[in-house]
């Protein structure tokens, strides 16, 4: 009965939570992206985006998500303020964002997209600060009968 009320009030069952946690952890296992690599990627992302807009580095969140048949990288980076147009450019040529760390050549490329920008949850796809750039994530190890990640870039929500 307690379970019934929990379900009624939207609290997910613990097995559903387990499924979701497993899904996420296996995704990262298969991507063979070590947590420190993800941390480094996050750091570099923030650095690049900070050249254009002021972001809340503390609230940044980078995660990977399985979508249908591809894996998407989601970066939720709250924007605090727009920078002035004439904001000083960084010393390096800023035309291209730096490539994410790629210690090993990927055996199988996985498309990822940076999406979910601007702290406001209602931010739609028209928000100008959206940064959408397909990135090459590290390949997962070859698996048996496993969903294959395609090389098409995932679209942002």
């Amino acid at each position, binding site marked *: 009965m307690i379970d019934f009320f929990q379900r009624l009030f939207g609290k997910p069952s613990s097995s559903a939570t387990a499924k979701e946690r497993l*899904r996420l952890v296996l995704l990262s296992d298969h991507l063979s992206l070590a947590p420190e690599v993800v941390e480094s990627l996050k750091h570099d992302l923030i650095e690049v985006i900070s050249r254009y807009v002021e972001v809340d580095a503390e609230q940044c969140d980078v995660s990977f998500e399985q979508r249908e048949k591809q894996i998407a990288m989601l970066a939720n980076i709250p924007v605090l303020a727009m920078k002035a147009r004439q904001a000083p450019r960084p010393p390096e040529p800023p035309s291209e964002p730096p490539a994410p760390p790629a210690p090993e050549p990927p055996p199988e490329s996985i498309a990822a997209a940076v999406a979910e920008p601007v702290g406001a949850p209602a931010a739609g796809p028209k928000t100008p600060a959206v940064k959408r750039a397909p990135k090459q994530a590290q390949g997962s190890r070859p698996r048996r009968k496993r969903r294959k990640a395609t090389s098409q870039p995932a679209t942002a929500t």
Partner: protein
Amino acid sequence: MQETVVHADGEPARGEAREAAAAPQATRGRAIVITSGKGGVGKTTTTANLGAALAAAGAAVVLVDADVGLRNLDIVLGLEARVRHHVLDVLEGAVDVDGALVTDKRVPQLRLLAAAQTREKDDVDTEAFRDLVTSLRERFDYVLIDCPAGIEKGFANAIAAADEAIIVCTPDVSAVRDADRVVGLLGERRSVRLIVNRLRPALVRKGKMLSVDDVNAILHLPLLGVVTDAPDVIVSTNRGEPVALDAASAVGSAYREIAQRIAGTLTSSPEIPRERSFFEKLFGGRP
């Protein structure tokens, strides 16, 4: 006590009878490793029970404990008092393999090759272990290898000689994650099948435990069978009597069915134990 080590010579085991038969390649026995990655999911219990069930059904079976340093298959089988030599004695030439095999008196078709308790997994030479298993395959219908937990040297030794693997996985996040890793390490060359162990159907119904389908949505393996979390298993392990030999036990029956699936004598897909709902219980309906 003179009979503690029973030699295989002269016993009418089916595996030995085969030696005289046609081409050895065509009639070789099967080497199956029982593995999981995570410890404590029931690999040893599964090995003991599948071995007992296969042997009780008439096959010549040898169980090889590859968990050197943490030997337990002997005690689960209740044969611990009769082990005189272990796998490293054989590998190092101190005794021939027949001198180390222990015959289970309840099921004479079942033999055990125990692990060394006071040695380390690194002491086992992978090539020599593979050769030993290969030689056992010539004489037995089934060589079941009880793999140690982990994915280090002991795991490498245990899987080296096996061309089939059975993954034992309990319905919890850590076991599934480790099983997923092990499936990747086993590679494409081997047949890999799944046993979901310690399922509690009542918890699954309440949404408090991963279901068999949840587990296999991640592992994508052919399902050999499901074993529920039953007190019989604990009691039988306490006594050193494989539950698969208990005709009255439901969980013993689950092991016997898995053994039949391994042997190919049962081809129906495994039934997944379900808890009946409140209304089904009330009206006596079938799940």
